């Protein structure tokens, strides 16, 4: 059962909101495209106006570390596309994760997260968060009993990726939301690889959505960025876990965010406390580039997914390929969930393993190095097709066991399928596989 009557929904369709949400013509000049407000600070009318802004009594801009008009357009656009109440943009996807947890985590607090996350998130949660005395319990979130068992009294949140990078895992959002809510936890979904075009996590019970806007949203590999979007429906006052929102805030003279701002509380706090003190602000130019990217999100995602489907089918039938993990394939264990949660499209990031006489690790690296069209780099969600050997790169910091559970074992090659001509992509992978196999045979002789 999906949540009925989300009050943040409008009568406008997704594609209309991709282009228009947040971006009415600029009233002073009539500029139609969103202006880049490349400035740090904003003039007050008088001392009383300044005071009411600093006291959070009026809407308005003070200093671009907190809020900026160009970034605000992107925030409203993302809030609209996810059908949330508000959004806070920041410097990167990783910054968005810190900003999100910072709103309610105290030293000693814990949360439960999937063990099949983007490797950088596993490292952030497992290593850096420990320095804040925040503790992640990483579990297989396909095992609902294990998720329930991992929840301790100190746990405040459950975190998963809707479509996980790189393993192609589609999370079962609906029962996970139920488990989180039964335990009074906030349910956070990283919707980076699915994008709001494929997946609407708030419809399935998510409370907060995080994004690396660096990927499909900006879409051209130009701009780092992140965002956290609030549904506005989580009751922060239901238990005593969320003092960050429900306890008086000394820096604002004892104001209580949840009581004062209601469903605006999380987003207000993320700007006026989170960005104020963590300082990981998104640059206006990056917000502008990301807004341009989002204008074509649906068109690009259709092509990304169509190309990815064909590449995955080609590889699944290739003599030199051992396995393909892509939820778009009917044989894939996540195929059913892709129908339910992703509208039957499985995104464009997936993994495969290479057959070979020598070890998978060397074969994987050789395939990557043999490509002429796929770019060997550490990103996903670009217009260009990308290839990477996670075990030797982005998942290097992890243990062998963590790598295997995250779907990044030694033989794994990750693809991010771009928008190029399909035949050219197939030809490049075919020649790379044959070249790698020939080199492998030579090495074995």
């Amino acid at each position, binding site marked *: 059962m999906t949540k009925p*009557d989300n*009050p*943040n*929904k*409008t009568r*406008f369709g997704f594609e*209309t*909101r991709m282009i*228009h*949400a*947040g971006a*009415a*013509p600029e*009233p*002073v000049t*009539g500029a139609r495209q969103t202006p880049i407000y490349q400035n740090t600070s904003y003039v007050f*009318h008088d001392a009383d*106006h300044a005071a*009411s802004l600093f*006291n*959070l*009594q*009026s*809407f*308005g*801009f003070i200093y671009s570390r907190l*809020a900026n*008009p160009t*970034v*605000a*357009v992107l*925030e*409203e656009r993302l*809030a*609209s596309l996810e*059908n*949330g*109440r*508000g*959004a*806070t*943009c920041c410097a990167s996807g990783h910054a968005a994760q810190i900003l999100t947890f910072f709103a309610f985590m105290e030293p000693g607090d814990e949360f439960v997260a999937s063990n099949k996350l983007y490797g950088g998130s596993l490292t952030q949660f497992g290593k850096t968060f420990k320095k804040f005395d925040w503790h992640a319990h990483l579990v297989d979130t396909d095992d609902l009993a294990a998720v329930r068992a991992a929840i301790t009294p100190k746990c405040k949140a459950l975190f998963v990726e809707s479509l996980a990078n790189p393993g192609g895992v589609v999370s079962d959002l609906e029962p996970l939301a139920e488990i989180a809510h039964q335990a009074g936890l906030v349910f956070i979904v990283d919707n980076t690889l699915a994008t709001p075009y494929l997946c609407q996590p708030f419809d399935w019970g998510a409370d907060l959505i995080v994004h690396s806007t660096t990927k499909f949203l900006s879409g051209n590999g130009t701009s780092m960025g992140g965002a956290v979007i609030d549904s506005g429906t989580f*009751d922060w*006052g239901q238990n005593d876990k969320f003092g960050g929102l429900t306890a008086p805030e000394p820096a*604002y*003279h*004892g*104001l209580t965010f*949840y*009581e*004062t*701002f*209601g*469903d*605006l509380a999380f*987003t*207000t706090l993320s*700007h006026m406390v989170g960005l104020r003190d963590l300082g990981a602000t998104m640059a206006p130019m990056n917000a502008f580039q990301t807004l341009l990217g989002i204008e074509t999100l649906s068109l690009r995602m259709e092509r990304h997914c169509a190309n990815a489907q064909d590449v995955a089918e080609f590889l699944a039938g290739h003599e030199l390929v051992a396995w393909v993990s892509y939820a778009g394939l009917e044989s894939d264990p996540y195929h059913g969930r892709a129908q339910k949660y992703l509208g039957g499209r499985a995104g464009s990031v997936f993994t495969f393993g290479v057959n070979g006489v020598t070890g998978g690790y060397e074969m994987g690296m050789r395939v990557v190095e043999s490509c002429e069209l796929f770019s060997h780099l550490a990103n996903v969600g670009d217009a260009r097709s990308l290839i990477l050997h996670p075990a030797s790169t982005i998942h290097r910091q992890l243990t062998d066991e963590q790598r295997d559970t995250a779907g990044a074992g030694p033989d794994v090659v990750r693809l991010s399928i771009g928008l190029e001509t399909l035949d050219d992509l197939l030809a490049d992978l075919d020649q790379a596989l044959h070249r790698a196999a020939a080199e492998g045979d030579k090495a074995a002789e």
Partner: protein
Amino acid sequence: MSETPNGGELAYSDSQLRAILRSVRTIAMVGISPRWNRPSFFAMKYLQTKGYRVVPVNPGAAGQAILGETCYAALREVPGGIDMVDVFRDAEAAGAVVDEAIALRHDKGIQVVWMQLGIRNDAAAARATAAGLTVIMDRCPKIEYGRLHAELSWGGFNSRIISSRRRRAQIL
């Protein structure tokens, strides 16, 4: 945060809210707190900067000045006209405030009863509507004003407003 709704979803069109906020000038705010860090104080201060006259009503603060306006113990003690009554009391107490507004509607010229975000009293709303008043429930006039004038968007919020029209620039 909201009381258990007695009826279905409340839906007010943007044009209805815009018309109310455009037509009223004097707002009696019942249940306002004289403490500067309370939500009602925020709302009063904001609405004042938008050109509304806000008259505070709270028996506990009667006789005090709040943001330059004398606070009264009850609606009937407010001198002069009132266009809108903004109710900052819980759903149960809101019933009596609404009945007072109904009783005073001709004397004071009251047109609108507005119950704050989180407050809904369907029985009181039905009485007020039957008496010819316009009723809004479970909304905040500050947030709605900000939303309809693109200020809420500055905070990264979803205004749900899509428009290709150029607004008249307002220098506030």
